[in-house]
């Protein structure tokens, strides 16, 4: 299940959905809004999604993870809207019989989601300026592969 959420959501209840008797390992990733990015003090973030295609592409990524790894379940939820420092921006939860598959799949899902799902992030800086991440027209960020770490 891949979801876009315009409201805060509860990871614990998502994790309970993943619980099942065969599962021995659950790996989760949470992306939190941090107070800085590449040397700039961040005050808040806006996320915007092209929702219909984001959900399709997200579901494709989850299906790929199921093909590549021996998973029992996989969920990813991404926030949109205006987020403050410390807010949960994205949650990935994966269950498997064994931990190796759970770690690999969780990482695959977040890596692919950040690279492929049509969601955009605008940073609001302490200086009052803003910037759409990855939308610079030249310089270090101007290659298709460049994307913010985190």
């Amino acid at each position, binding site marked *: 299940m891949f979801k876009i959420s315009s409201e805060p959501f509860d990871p614990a209840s998502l994790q309970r959905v993943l619980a099942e008797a065969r599962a021995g390992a659950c790996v989760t990733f949470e992306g939190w809004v941090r107070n800085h990015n590449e040397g700039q003090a961040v005050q808040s973030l806006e996320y915007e999604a092209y929702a219909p295609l984001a959900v399709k592409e997200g579901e494709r990524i989850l299906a790929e993870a199921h093909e590549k790894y021996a998973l029992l379940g996989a969920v990813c939820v991404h926030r949109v809207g205006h987020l403050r420092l410390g807010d949960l921006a994205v949650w990935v939860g994966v269950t498997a019989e064994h931990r190796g598959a759970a770690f690999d799949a969780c990482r695959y899902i977040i890596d692919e989601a950040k690279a492929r799902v049509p969601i955009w*992030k605008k940073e609001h800086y302490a200086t009052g300026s803003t910037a759409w991440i990855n939308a610079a027209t030249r310089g270090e960020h101007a290659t298709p592969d460049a994307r913010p770490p985190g």
Partner: protein
Amino acid sequence: MTISVQYFAILREQRGLTEERLNTAATTPAALYEELKARHAFSLPSNRIRAAINDEFVAPTALLREGDRVVFIPPVAGG
């Protein structure tokens, strides 16, 4: 040909609206983006934009058809 175009993120801000219907002689998303980029001074070069038609990714050289909904997708930055 009448096409609808949706804008997100930096393109939405640079265009000043989220959606429009327009007539164009462009037959591909690539040509349509060049036309709109020239008209609205979009900052992103076409090689950094992906295109979707009717909520599916398409090649920049896909053929546009009457009534298509086109979205130009700036580099993504989720997470």
